[in-house]
């Protein structure tokens, strides 16, 4: 390794520290001008590993302007890293200017940063897009030597990663010879991530440095003396035991998977908080002020516990967390490991974690996660790639910066890993889309945003285009939100629609508008740790009043966010199929599985068990693919279509993380027995053909996906505070746009982009397709005369959960029948 400059070496000596091996290795690679990806657990001093080479270069060859760009997914992280850098820079007596630039940076400072940039600029992917879209981008980045990418594993799994990759490809072109240092937590496919890092600096390669984790974490499952429920996600049975656990530890972080679970847990803990322990709540809907308060109280060591969602998965280092508690299933081993890493950021001591399953299937899932963690197995998501909506946004940004030749830009964007295989044809169609909408019916050429000039370059038609681009930048599309304000209730009974209502109460936070669309005045739900009653929506605010009901009527305001990882699913299937390994399961879970073995069948790992049985007035078909709720939901939609054609008269279905239950009027058992229904045909992979197509066209999930793509691609504008339309109008119009476009030009690139996104995200079609291939010829049918033990969790959900957003015609039909009855005098 080349020696550290004396200023740095002396600083380490004064501190009594020595660079760690991975820091020196990264230093050596970077000083030889090469790029590298460092994979290391949290607390390993990754930031210093990233910046040591920059400090050294600036000491040896001071230069004005930007030398190093640091890009991370979180504003808070940039601010924290800036603070952590300024201390050593000050102590070493170096004249290096470090500044952050985020959406919160004042406009005058941002403008100044363009003509008088700092040496180290700490920023986000969106700011890179903005900076590179200015005509003076080449000057801003003329001295750029290094890019440091932090928490890369978190960025590459979303569209932000695609945007970032394109931004880096542009930076690599503006400043040839730059090197990239990327920092990541442990991932399933380190080589893929390394390729991602190397793509923009090709033909140069990138090194991969993997640091072994420190002490193995100690992970346990809560050994509850209570009964673990069949279904549900609240884990209320465990609240008293959780409270005791919090009491016995210094500081605990309690992770849950959804905001509603966070609300329930927080409220439940305070109900039994007889010692008045400082327990706080942190999730994305709460007011920013309130979240900052919690974070600073946490940093100051004033809290005993924080109940939080994925908002605290990443972020600044708090040092003294003693215990991480995962309430509800972990969903994936990589996610669990990340969360565990939030405890005890000292490498040599083991982190401690406790998992609290909220139902019996989750017990299996928690066991599977513990095995996976012990094996060091990772199941992180792969980087996303090829988003045409993000590419369209980038193409417009590049046009705002300078006229471009299609050939040149095409070569450049293929240096972004997600677009390495993009065809020229698709690229050209994206350019056409940006220029004039790209419709087969060429209606807008007169109004084009980009024009092809005689010298063969594309230019923006007028300066307004650049303004519009800058207002619509980024890939994070928020659901339309409304502010939630606490007001005094109406004088009359709850739900009254007349009478005065108090105004100007306290702001509690924000919530997705669609949640309120399904409420009627008087409905109660949990928010900010208390039960409130919905009063009304006025302009952009939802008025709620304090409700004096102990339990909210509306149980949740969002479904599970993360699907069960394929990897954990397989482990769970394995576990169920091997009774020899049940020894360490809690008694009640073991009894449950044993009973299943006795009265029905335990499917083998590669089998799909399909049970059919009558229950109450319906006939049920329950299967157990373990592929996550989204894939099951899609499967449910498609299977009901097929069952309908087979005249099994299906009525409805319930999809959970583990199973799918369909019920109907036809006797499915008999139909199979008599050869009138073949399960192999029912589950044949060709259901992903025409049936899927037909369903997609009417699916609200498609419309939601389209809205995001259309905003990112610049087909419709985002909502800006205090400006124009409300979110609802905007949602509605994007639905109408989708319908018209899907019907009249179904191969338009935005429809293509929507289909690709939906297949990957909301519908999980790839996973469903893999599943159908896996179970093909491995379906075992078990006709039963009554419900099986394994089916119980799905069956208890029926009637408790809301009807999924399709087939809403039935609500009108019922209201119409009611009218008929009224008319008949009934």
């Amino acid at each position: 390794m080349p020696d550290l400059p004396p200023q740095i070496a002396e600083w380490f000596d004064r501190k009594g520290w020595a660079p760690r091996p991975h820091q020196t290795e990264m230093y050596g690679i970077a000083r030889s001008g090469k790029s590298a990806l460092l994979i290391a657990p949290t607390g390993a001093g990754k930031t210093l590993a990233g910046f040591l080479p920059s400090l050294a270069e600036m000491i040896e060859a001071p230069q004005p302007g930007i030398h190093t760009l640091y890009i991370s997914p979180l504003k808070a992280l940039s601010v924290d890293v800036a603070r952590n850098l300024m201390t050593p820079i000050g102590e070493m007596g170096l004249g290096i200017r470090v500044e952050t630039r985020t959406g919160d940076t004042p406009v005058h400072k941002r403008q100044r940063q363009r003509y008088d940039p700092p040496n180290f600029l700490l920023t986000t992917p969106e700011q890179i897009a903005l900076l590179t879209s200015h005509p003076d981008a080449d000057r801003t980045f003329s001295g750029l030597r290094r890019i440091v990418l932090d928490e890369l594993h978190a960025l590459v799994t979303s569209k932000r990663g695609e945007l970032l990759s394109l931004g880096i490809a542009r930076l690599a072109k503006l400043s040839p010879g730059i090197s990239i240092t990327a920092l990541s937590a442990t991932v399933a496919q380190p080589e893929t991530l390394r390729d991602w890092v190397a793509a923009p600096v090709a033909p140069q390669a990138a090194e991969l440095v993997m640091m072994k984790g420190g002490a193995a974490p100690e992970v346990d499952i809560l050994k509850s003396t209570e009964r673990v429920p069949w279904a549900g996600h609240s884990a209320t049975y465990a609240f008293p035991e959780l409270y005791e656990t919090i009491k016995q530890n210094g500081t605990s972080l309690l992770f849950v998977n959804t905001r509603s679970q966070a609300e329930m847990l927080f409220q439940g803990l305070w109900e039994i908080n007889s010692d008045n322990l400082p327990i706080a709540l942190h999730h994305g809907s709460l007011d920013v002020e309130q979240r900052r308060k919690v974070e600073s109280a946490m940093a100051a060591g004033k809290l005993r516990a924080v109940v939080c969602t994925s908002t605290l998965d990443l972020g600044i280092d708090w040092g003294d967390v003693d215990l991480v508690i995962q309430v509800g299933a972990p969903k994936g081993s990589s996610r669990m490991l990340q969360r565990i890493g939030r405890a005890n950021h000292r490498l040599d001591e083991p982190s401690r974690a406790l998992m609290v399953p909220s139902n019996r299937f989750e017990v299996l899932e928690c066991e599977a996660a513990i095995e996976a963690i012990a094996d060091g197995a990772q199941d992180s998501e792969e980087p996303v790639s090829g988003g045409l909506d993000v590419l369209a946004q980038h193409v417009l940004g590049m046009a705002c910066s300078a006229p471009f030749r299609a050939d040149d830009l095409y070569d450049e964007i293929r240096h972004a890993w997600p677009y390495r295989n993009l065809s020229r044809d698709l690229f050209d169609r994206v350019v056409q889309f940006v220029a004039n909408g790209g419709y087969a019916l060429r209606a807008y050429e007169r109004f084009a945003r980009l024009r092809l000039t005689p010298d063969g370059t594309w230019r923006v038609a007028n300066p307004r285009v650049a303004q519009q681009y800058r207002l619509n930048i980024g890939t994070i599309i928020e659901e339309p939100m409304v502010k939630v304000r606490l007001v005094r209730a109406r004088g009359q009974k709850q739900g009254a629609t007349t009478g005065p209502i108090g105004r100007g109460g306290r702001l509690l936070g924000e919530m997705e508008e669609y949640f309120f669309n399904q409420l009627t005045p008087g409905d109660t739900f949990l928010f900010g740790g208390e039960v409130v009653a919905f009063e009304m929506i006025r302009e952009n605010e939802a008025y709620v009043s304090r409700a004096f009901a102990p339990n909210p009527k509306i149980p949740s305001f969002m479904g599970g966010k993360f699907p069960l990882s394929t990897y954990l699913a397989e482990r769970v299937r394995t576990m169920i199929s091997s009774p020899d390994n049940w020894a360490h399961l809690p008694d009640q879970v073991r009894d449950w599985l044993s009973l299943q073995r006795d009265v029905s069948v335990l499917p083998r790992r590669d089998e799909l068990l399909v049970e059919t049985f009558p229950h109450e007035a319906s006939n049920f078909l329950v299967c157990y693919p373990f592929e996550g709720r989204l894939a099951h939901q899609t499967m449910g939609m498609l299977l009901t279509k097929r069952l309908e054609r087979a005249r099994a008269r299906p009525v409805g279905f319930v999809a959970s993380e583990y199973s799918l239950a369909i019920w109907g009027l036809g006797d499915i058992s008999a139909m199979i027995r008599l050869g009138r229904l073949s399960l192999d045909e029912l589950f044949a992979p060709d259901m992903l053909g025409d049936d899927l197509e037909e369903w997609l066209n009417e699916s609200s999930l498609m419309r939601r996906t389209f809205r995001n793509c259309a905003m990112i691609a610049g087909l419709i504008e985002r909502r800006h505070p205090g400006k124009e339309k409300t979110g609802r109008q905007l949602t509605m119009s994007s639905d109408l746009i989708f319908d018209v476009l899907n019907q009249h030009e179904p191969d338009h690139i935005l429809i293509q982009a929507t289909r690709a996104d939906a297949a990957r995200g909301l519908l999980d079609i790839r996973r469903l397709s893999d599943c159908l291939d896996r179970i093909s010829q491995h379906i075992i049918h078990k006709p039963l005369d009554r419900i099986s033990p394994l089916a119980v969790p799905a069956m208890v959900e029926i009637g408790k959960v809301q009807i999924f957003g399709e087939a809403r015609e039935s609500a009108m039909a019922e209201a119409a029948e009611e009218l008929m009855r009224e008319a008949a005098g009934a």
Partner: protein
Amino acid sequence: MTAQGVAKVDDRREAVTLTFADQLFVPLPSGALYWPDEQTLLVADLHLEKMSSFVARGLFLPPYDSYATLRLVGRDVEATGAKRLISLGDSFHRDTGTGTLPPDARALLDRLTKDVEWVWIAGNHDPAPHDLGGRCCGGLSIRDITLTHEPAAVHDRVIAGHLHPAARVYINGRSTRRPCFAADDRLLLMPAYGVSTGSINILSDPFTGLLNRAALRVMMLGRDAVYPVSVRRLVRG
């Protein structure tokens, strides 16, 4: 977490009718209203050329909405055998839209205006007369029923558009929101017909004082049928 779906709804029901001002009408799921005794089809708020109007703001929305709307009109004309079509205003999203119809939409409109007697009633979005076939007027009266775009504060025997009415029903834990016909004993409000039009809940401010709740009848547009729904089940939003 779980989600639940309903697989199928039986949509086979006999045609719904609506009696207003002593006349029998047939509301169609497209949002058109057929008047058998006059062999007349009524539509409101086509808002043709709405998508293309966004180009003024630099947005390129799919330029297919006019054709899509006119094709629906054509199907309704064919299905009902109407001899006359009356468009109750805001037929175009703005006056200049009459000059920007794409060729396929223009051809379809030319054919339709030749096939049936076509009447354009002026709306607030498209007050100016034009020469796209048919006849332009400010409003008209048939069998003592006034057909107009915007209902006046005081009215009787009026069929109007303009307001884009919609209803939301809430029943057994489920809610559905759809455009609707809304009528009392004096006024019949038509839903907006155009494929690019939005809608407003009839329980919200713009409708205040217009309809007499005691005599209110609401018919929601389903996928394949019109549903006369119980007024007790209406909610806001």
